[in-house]
């Protein structure tokens, strides 16, 4: 067992929010492939996640990793009704922008772009921050995500009202709540267990 931190020797660490495919490197030792038991494979959910140092680090507590991953997938990937995927990703990107998670923001800004085809608008959220003025609907989703992200949270009737006003039904509002709430989980792990690395040169 390694009980030391991994010293960061990360030159050119990303220092701005970006939609580029940046990487991430852990500050604590992930499990090795040879250490994985059935319990760990169950925790990883998808065997392909054994390639990720982030998931291999979290696999040290496989039961919470498995439940975390299944929660994540249903919030973002369940296609039945509710908030369109692009806007679930927007809630994740806005939350990550507000907490300051450059890595999470890059991934979910890219997903928001893919599903909305609005790369420029997504980039403005990254460049200008969460007070950006995009359009009424996106502004309301961003503002609600930010209100929920505050500690103590200040999400209330005003946010519910403004989301309804721009056309979200209550299932869509519940999706926005879950998207922002989940990234308050993800951002804290990603920010505190390692750091972003530069995009591979293409």
């Amino acid at each position, binding site marked *: 067992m390694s009980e030391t931190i991994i010293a960061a020797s990360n030159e050119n660490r990303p220092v701005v929010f970006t939609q580029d495919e940046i990487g991430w490197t852990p*500050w604590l030792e992930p499990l090795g492939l040879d250490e994985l038991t059935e319990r760990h494979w169950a925790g990883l959910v998808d065997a392909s996640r054994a390639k990720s140092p982030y998931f291999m680090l979290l696999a040290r507590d496989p039961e919470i990793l498995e439940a975390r991953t299944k929660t994540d997938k249903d919030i973002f990937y369940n296609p039945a009704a509710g908030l369109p995927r692009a806007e679930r990703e927007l809630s994740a990107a806005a939350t990550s922008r507000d907490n300051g998670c450059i890595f999470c923001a890059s991934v979910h800004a890219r997903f928001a772009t893919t599903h909305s085809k609005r790369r420029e608008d997504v980039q403005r959220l990254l460049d200008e921050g969460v007070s950006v003025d995009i359009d009424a609907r996106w502004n309301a989703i961003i503002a609600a995500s930010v209100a929920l992200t505050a500690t103590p*949270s200040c999400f209330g*009737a005003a946010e519910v009202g403004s989301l309804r006003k721009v056309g979200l039904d209550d299932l869509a509002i519940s999706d926005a709540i879950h998207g922002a709430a989940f990234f308050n989980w993800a951002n804290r792990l990603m920010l505190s267990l390692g750091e972003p690395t530069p995009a591979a040169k293409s």
Partner: protein
Amino acid sequence: MSDSEGDVIDLLVGVEKGSYLDAIRAHRPEARENAQKSYLALFAPKFPGEMTREERYALAVFVAGLHRDVATLGFYRAGLAKLNGRLGLFDAVDREIARGAAKGPYGHYPEGPLSREDRAGPVHRVSEADHEVLGERLSAALEHAHLLVFRPRDASPAALQALLDAGWSTSGIVTLSQLVAFLSFQIRVVVGLRALAATPSGNV
């Protein structure tokens, strides 16, 4: 604690079977079930590892207290009370909640263009008196939890080294980080759904 105690988010929001909000939650059955499984994995673990039940609940009380959500705080306080823990533990955690009050998120970015968005704020250190009650491990855990709750972008390898120095293992740090991060999710789902339930529109 077991599955029989029921869904914690439903309990804290006040979701009744067959209600409007019950129907909304039923649209995301896996998220609902696994939010509960996450809670069980952290507070009734099948493989407890090094983190004791007392450490788990004391940390949860601290985190819920920092979020100032009365229902959630009451829930984890009740869990801690059932453990008949160390004398003075409750009072020490309560004092640290009061001492740790802040408004997040704040903190610093890596030096560069984002430095203009740096926001200073309190760095929590457990008082000497409470440190004596809480011990090395729990004191270090509370200080780290305060960082995660309010200023996650200030996280650093040095903060993890402080946990290792206080007796946490690498795997223990993963569990403790998951616990604080999960509560940051659970409490926000509770706050969000409660607000939604307080103003139902009647059309899903």
